[in-house]
């Protein structure tokens, strides 16, 4: 059988980086093929080449035996390739149907959009692959997993036979991951070929038929999941044994880092989206918040940071009432923040790394200050950025490249590093290791534990329940804007936690 995809000798250079170095990748028709590798190994670059977003410098590509070169994603789509991006590309104010047909609108005579044909076709596609969403729902009303399904349907609607997923599970909770995997198997049963990238190796072993491992831009192995363990995979990725992290003891002090007292946030319709939440995090303590996205976590974080107005209650940072303080004064007083969406909220993609490292800390040393506090201290900023690069293993040729030149995981490491080196007294961390590879994840956890033992109070939000359970000293569950349960991490599993999060179990009626 001719393979669905055959990439041969793909090489892609960026200034100072060899992103793909003579990569070979063969994907058989109808298989689920995982691509694994460390942050910056060249996975996304390879996928972008396949999808026509970037040209390769060298190499050839065969699809079903036919040679192809793509100058744009449109050409790739025409050839039957579809990509589900990690950052959803949906218009929130439009319906599912409108989003699906965007860019490929079937038209009637006179140029009017033929919604009937479109919705019929959408239904067919949905049925054929067992993907269900209501075509007339507004995208903004959908949950993350559903939005992802819309992205998948959108790709199928255009006739894709080969689907590329770049880190599809990073934003999902375990239940949603299972749903996604069911969908992927269904797609496969219907003859689709799937390539996907994932940093969670257990997931890879569960779903993939074949696994290709990239290391520093080179293909180092292609293996079958039955023949390897997660540890084997990790070692293939880094090329050596993984270090075992040492455990630091938790020393929770009596001083309270941050207090939320009956905090309420209202949405546009004046309904409470954060409903009388009270919390206390002591220094040296990590409090994890579990919850399906859209249950008020985002607004709660906004309230703590000061980007979201609170309608009731008060917030104390190290004993000071900050309820009416500006974001700046909160940050200057020791509040660190790792944002949930690194590209939207945490970076300036077109600015150099050293400017990115100053974000949120631009008014403090070493970024400004010195003989004249008004001026940016370029030298200070650069050396601080170098320090982040060293301590958090941000892989980049230098600190003058712009942030968009970093791989997703390395962007994340830069942000985590930026907040950690500023030595905050309270840290709000939303999905701190999202998109970070296993090795680097362990070291970020280590850094957070280290900071905890030095007295950091942390509010942790994460879709990765292993991370939540593994790091937190106490976990609270948020559901519909309220805290519905307080749990001891040593007594729960990702499964049981998941049940709390969807509201299936609560403290009043345990499972």
């Amino acid at each position, binding site marked *: 059988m001719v393979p669905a995809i055959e990439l041969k000798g793909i090489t892609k250079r960026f*200034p100072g980086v060899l992103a793909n170095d003579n990569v070979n990748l063969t994907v058989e028709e109808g298989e689920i093929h995982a691509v694994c590798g460390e942050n910056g190994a060249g996975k996304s670059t390879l996928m972008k080449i396949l999808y026509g977003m*970037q040209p390769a410098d060298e190499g050839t590509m065969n699809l079903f035996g036919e040679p192809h070169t793509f*100058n*744009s994603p*449109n*050409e790739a*789509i*025409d050839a*039957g390739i579809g990509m589900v991006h990690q950052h959803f590309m949906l218009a929130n104010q439009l319906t599912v149907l409108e989003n699906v*047909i965007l*860019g*490929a*609108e*079937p038209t009637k005579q006179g140029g009017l959009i033929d919604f009937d044909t*479109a919705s019929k*076709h959408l239904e*067919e*596609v949905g*049925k*054929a*692959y067992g993907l269900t969403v209501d075509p007339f729902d507004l995208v903004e009303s959908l949950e993350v997993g559903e939005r992802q399904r819309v992205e998948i349907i959108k790709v*199928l*609607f*255009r*006739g*894709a*036979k080969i689907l590329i997923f770049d880190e599809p599970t990073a934003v999902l909770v375990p239940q949603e991951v299972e749903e996604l995997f069911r969908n992927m198997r269904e797609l496969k049963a*219907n*003859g*689709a070929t799937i390539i996907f990238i994932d940093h969670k190796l257990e997931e890879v072993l569960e779903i993939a038929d074949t696994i290709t491992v990239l290391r520093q831009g080179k293909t180092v192995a292609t293996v079958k999941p039955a023949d390897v363990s997660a540890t084997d995979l990790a070692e293939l990725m880094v090329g050596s044994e993984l270090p075992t992290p040492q455990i630091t003891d938790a020393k929770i002090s009596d001083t309270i880092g941050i207090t939320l007292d009956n905090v309420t946030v209202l949405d546009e319709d004046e309904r409470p989206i954060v409903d009388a939440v009270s919390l206390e995090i002591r220094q040296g303590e990590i409090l994890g918040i579990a919850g399906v996205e859209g249950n008020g976590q985002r607004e709660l974080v906004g309230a703590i*940071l000061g*980007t979201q107005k609170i309608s009731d209650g008060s917030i104390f940072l190290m004993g000071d009432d900050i309820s009416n303080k*500006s*974001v*700046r*004064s*909160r*940050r*200057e007083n020791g509040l660190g*923040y790792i*944002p949930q969406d690194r590209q*939207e*909220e*945490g*970076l*300036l993609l*077109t*600015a150099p790394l050293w*400017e990115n490292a*100053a*974000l*949120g800390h*631009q*008014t403090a040393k070493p*970024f*400004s200050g010195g003989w004249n*506090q*008004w*001026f*940016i201290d370029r030298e200070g900023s650069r050396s601080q950025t170098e320090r982040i690069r060293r301590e958090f293993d941000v892989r980049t040729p230098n600190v003058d490249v712009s942030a968009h030149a970093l791989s997703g995981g390395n962007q994340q490491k830069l942000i985590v590093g930026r907040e950690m080196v500023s030595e905050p007294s309270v840290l709000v961390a939303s999905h701190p290791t999202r998109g970070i590879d296993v090795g680097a994840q362990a070291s970020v956890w280590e850094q957070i534990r280290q900071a905890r033992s030095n007295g950091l109070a942390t509010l942790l939000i994460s879709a990765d329940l292993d991370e939540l359970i593994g790091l937190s000293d106490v976990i609270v569950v948020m559901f519909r804007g309220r805290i519905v349960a307080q749990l001891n991490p040593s007594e729960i599993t990702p499964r049981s936690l998941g049940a709390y999060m969807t509201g299936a179990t609560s403290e009043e009626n345990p499972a």
Partner: protein
Amino acid sequence: MSRLVLVRREQAVSGGQPLAFLIGIVTALLIGILLLVISGHDPMAVYERMFDSSLGSPRSWSITLNRAVPLGLAGLAVAVAGSMGLWNIGAEGQILAGAIMAAWIARIGEGWPSPILITIMLLASILGGALLGLGPAVAKAQIGVNEIITTLMLNEVALRLLQWLIHGPWKDPESRGFPLAPILPDEARLPDLFERAHWGAVIALIVIALFGLVASRTAWGYELRVAGSSGETAKYAGISLKRKIMTVLVLSGGIAGLAGGIELSGNADRIVEGISAGYGFAGIIVAALALMRPSGVAAVALLFGAVQVGGLSIQTMGVSSSVSTILQALILFGAIGAGVFSKYSIKRVGKEQKSNAGGMA
């Protein structure tokens, strides 16, 4: 069927901007030859006159410089707002407001020592422009009213105020009925630099350089850049968008106002209705051509000034004002177009793209 498409380059060609600028201008001049031949002129003679009158001698440089001053300041005003993604369409009115304020100081300060008088006049002109920027600034920052509309509307208000002044209270009794304000006293006039150029060029250059420095080197400028490129990121980094919008629009107005003060004190010598000659609107083009960068503004304003001076002078040799205007536009847009091309490359695409729906279901 194959066709050509524009593809954004992954990296702009290094040093491409100035080169593209040149190529664009040369292309425009070549097209201009065609235009001139068709309209019955000797292209070489026209081009020679254009060049001589604008850049050919110290004297023509001085005329060009005087023209470039209001263009550059207006361009900077628009670029300052543009650096945050805001459009100040009101520079024209702010120039008038600046000129009015400066004229008012000149009226009450007659007899003051010249340096003091001029300094106060220019400060007042900044204040005048800033005041006109304040309204749109507050409206935008506090309730999100579109600044394009408010700034545009205030142009009319400033113009009406000026007309009322020169038809009424400020009308020169010796103007034999013409709506003109009296000529400024000597001590209110900017001294000369060389030939016909006044000190305005130096002031404008300092202001542009100062803003360039502030924008690129200070924490304030850094925050401006952050706010301009991503509002969401700025919010989380503790940057108050409201405050930034306020300062930027007021500052933008102040800079345009200064252009009005300088134009009055250096060039126009009295308030007349046409004191601004559309500099505020031309400033939008200057800023766009300069890609909203202060460093580019000075260069573009100089080019724009030269083109305008050249364009006016060829009308004296019989080239119609419309042909002259087309020629000016050609040169300017040749430069923009080429700037765009240095960021994109042209690619031949193999086959027609289709985007019809058709699933594999």
